[in-house]
């Protein structure tokens, strides 16, 4: 009796406070994003503390989508993200499939060959010199190919593949499947969740890539949207504003455009994102 009364009295207060804490936490996360969103629709220059647009208008977004200097980086971002993700998935799945062939001569050597790159790296400058030597600087192939070999993602993929029952491989071989046929008839269809998780990880890192562009791309015609946004915010490259938009409106609109693709996709794909992390760290 005593216990129930106690819990009845205590729990609602705790739940209320806990709920309030999370409302505040969520507001702290959302207000900066909200502020940018509001300012991207506001055609006035002085912003201050307003959390609602004073003079609503779409001119900021119009500027992003009608000026070639702004939409071209956006196209480059899309193309390199899609190309890079496919490339990354191809390398990760093929590498991972070979690494689960336990009886294959040289398998351990290949595994160590890849794992060693996680322990030691040549560093920023030797990598830059190699990229320059391979004519991959100021070349979009460079920023697509370099991140495609991601050993961490490859190991994650291998962990997924290890969960496929060995008997499936055996029966496929008995049925006369070549390794390539087994790969795309058995392994890939069974790994859709892994392909989605790891594909998303690749896609996010390609879309958000700034460091590789900063290091290997100096020609502003080859900038992706992150680079373009950065140079606009730093003031080295004033945005072209059209249709009554101020520079600030365009900057804010550019930020929103930059985060929009994943903001739209993310609520639907949240589980795949989360799965990737958990396979990587918890199970490993």
């Amino acid at each position: 009796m005593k216990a129930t009364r106690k819990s009845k009295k205590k729990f609602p207060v705790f739940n209320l406070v806990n709920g309030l804490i999370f409302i505040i936490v969520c507001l702290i996360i959302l207000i900066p994003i909200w502020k940018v969103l509001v300012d991207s629709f506001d055609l006035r220059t002085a912003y201050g503390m307003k959390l609602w647009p004073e003079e609503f208008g779409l001119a900021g977004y119009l500027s992003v989508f009608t000026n070639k200097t702004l939409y071209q980086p956006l196209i480059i971002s899309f193309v390199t993200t899609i190309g890079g993700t496919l490339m990354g998935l191809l390398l990760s799945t093929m590498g991972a499939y070979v690494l689960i062939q336990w009886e294959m001569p040289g398998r351990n050597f290949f595994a160590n060959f890849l794992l060693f790159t996680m322990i030691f790296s040549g560093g920023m400058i030797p990598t830059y010199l190699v990229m320059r030597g391979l004519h991959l600087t100021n070349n979009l192939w460079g920023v697509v190919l370099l991140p495609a070999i991601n050993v961490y993602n490859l190991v994650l993929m291998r962990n997924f593949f290890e969960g496929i029952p060995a008997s499936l491989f055996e029966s496929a071989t008995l049925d006369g499947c070549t390794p390539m046929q087994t790969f795309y008839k058995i392994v890939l269809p069974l790994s859709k969740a892994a392909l989605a998780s790891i594909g998303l990880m690749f896609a996010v890192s390609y879309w958000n890539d700034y460091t590789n562009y900063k290091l290997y791309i100096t020609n502003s015609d080859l900038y992706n949207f992150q680079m373009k946004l950065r140079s606009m915010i730093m003031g080295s490259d004033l945005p072209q504003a059209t249709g009554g938009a101020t520079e600030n409106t365009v900057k804010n609109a550019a930020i929103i455009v930059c985060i929009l693709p994943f903001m739209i996709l993310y609520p639907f794909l949240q589980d795949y994102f989360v799965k990737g992390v958990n396979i990587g760290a918890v199970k490993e």
Partner: protein
Amino acid sequence: MKNNKNNAGGTVAVRKAPLKARIYKYRGFYLMFLPVFVFALMFHYLPMAGVRYAFTEYKGITDPVFVGLDNFKKMFGMPNFWTAFKNTLELSVIRLLMSTLAAVIISLFLNEIISIKFKKLAQTIIYLPHFMSWVVTASVFALILSPTNEGLVNTFLINVGILNAGEEIYFLGSNQWWRFAFYIISLWKETGWGTVIFMATLSGISPDLYEAASIDGAGRWQKMRYITMPALNNTIITVLILNLAKVLNLFESVFVLQNDATMEVSNVLQTYVYYQTFNSGAIPNYGYSTAVGLFRSLVGCVLVLFCNWLSKKVREGRGIV
């Protein structure tokens, strides 16, 4: 363990079929591995071979000239290098501890939310900033923390009377405030995502444990203290070890938030290498910046191996590489 077993299996197979036959059997797989091999060779092993420039003076236009350990002597004599080294450790380690602590606390409270819908919504929102790039994050905060009358934070501080007009704080442009801003922005961006791994652990705790504790008369705090916290210990150690191995990688987050005025508190090894090479105003000596990079890689390598050893020790033999 697994490898040993398979090695043993391999020796048995040697007796069964000659090596040539086994290689022939797997010929398709070698072909499949070829692209991966070439990529790793090109983008990981060629740069590794490039560390030889650390022992040369290499100005780009002329051929590298062997100078022995001169670059390292120069490096250890540079106050800027030591500042960068110290800053790297300080910024990384403090950020790691702060964000892990914050993620644990948030997870504990998140776990107590009863309404599943509200919990899901809160999770969706706090994970959000993780998917924004550092460039976007820096852009958002550059606008919000701006010292001119447009900045949200300064305007707020003036309106509530903490600051007087004209005393606006340039958070990202003063040595006094930069680190504080860096930690807060990092927390804003990554704390939510940091809870993912803890939430996974918490969802694995059997509800029976809580029920049994309730029957024994344990309250909410006691259950948190004696069931939830101990379950998290292992995960906390894992997260700390995994991230400790990466503390020297600090680059992009600092690079997009720093500026010339705050170099003293914000310059880290990677940004130091970058500025020495691409932004020094003189002809870059690739040899010197390679040497700094090599020092970073070697210390990083020791850290990874140490963390791997530590991980095997505390996580029942599971390493991190």
